[in-house]
């Protein structure tokens, strides 16, 4: 299966609730990045977590990384309707030398007002 698999594939929640998305990968990584894509548009970079980090925060976002389980999670707290988008994890396996990213299949998040 593909490097960087997200689950769930789709998630529907109410505004104000928290949303958690998970990502698993298969090989050693240099870093893992989360992106958001609104309705087939360009990707917006959310957060990068390096292989030697376990947790990172950015505003309402919290990302964790467990390299022993080869998995990461993205938590969005106090969700808003504007958070409705597809979320992708992407792994950099290059050791920082060529920046190539391998993307997961994505989670479609719908936040209902």
């Amino acid at each position, binding site marked *: 299966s*593909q490097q960087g698999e997200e689950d769930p594939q789709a998630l529907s929640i109410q505004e104000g609730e928290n949303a958690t998305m998970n990502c698993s990968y298969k090989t050693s990584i*240099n*870093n893992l*990045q989360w*992106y958001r894509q609104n309705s*087939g*548009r*360009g*990707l*917006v*970079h959310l957060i*990068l977590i*390096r292989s030697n980090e376990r947790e990172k925060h950015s505003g309402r976002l919290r990302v964790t990384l467990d390299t022993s389980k080869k998995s990461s999670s993205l938590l969005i707290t106090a969700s808003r309707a504007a958070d409705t988008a597809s979320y*992708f994890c*992407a792994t*950099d396996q290059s050791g*920082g030398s*060529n*920046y*190539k*990213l*391998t*993307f*997961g*299949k*994505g989670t479609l998040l719908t936040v209902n007002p």
Partner: protein
Amino acid sequence: SAVISQKPSRDICQRGTSLTIQCQVDSQVTMMFWYRQQPGQSLTLIATANQGSEATYESGFVIDKFPISRPNLTFSTLTVSNMSPEDSSIYLCSGPGGGDTQYFGPGTRLTVL
């Protein structure tokens, strides 16, 4: 962060024709990347565009179908040649933005009839 623009933002083309997509970065970058996102799918790396040398293609992508130019450190083009409906996708370029982060352009939505 890098600002990346793409032209055109969308196009509808006839099968058998070719389309050239332009990508402009607001700062000099050594590597630029081209991705394809088929409908409802995740992103797949097509090739790495290196300034001053041939592009490096990923498995399943060939230069005859997706010729790439990289005339300087801020610009690249991707041509989708001899198009068929299966080439209908969003094509995105990206470049490193510092700290191993990748930034993406807004994408080119291509429909082939």
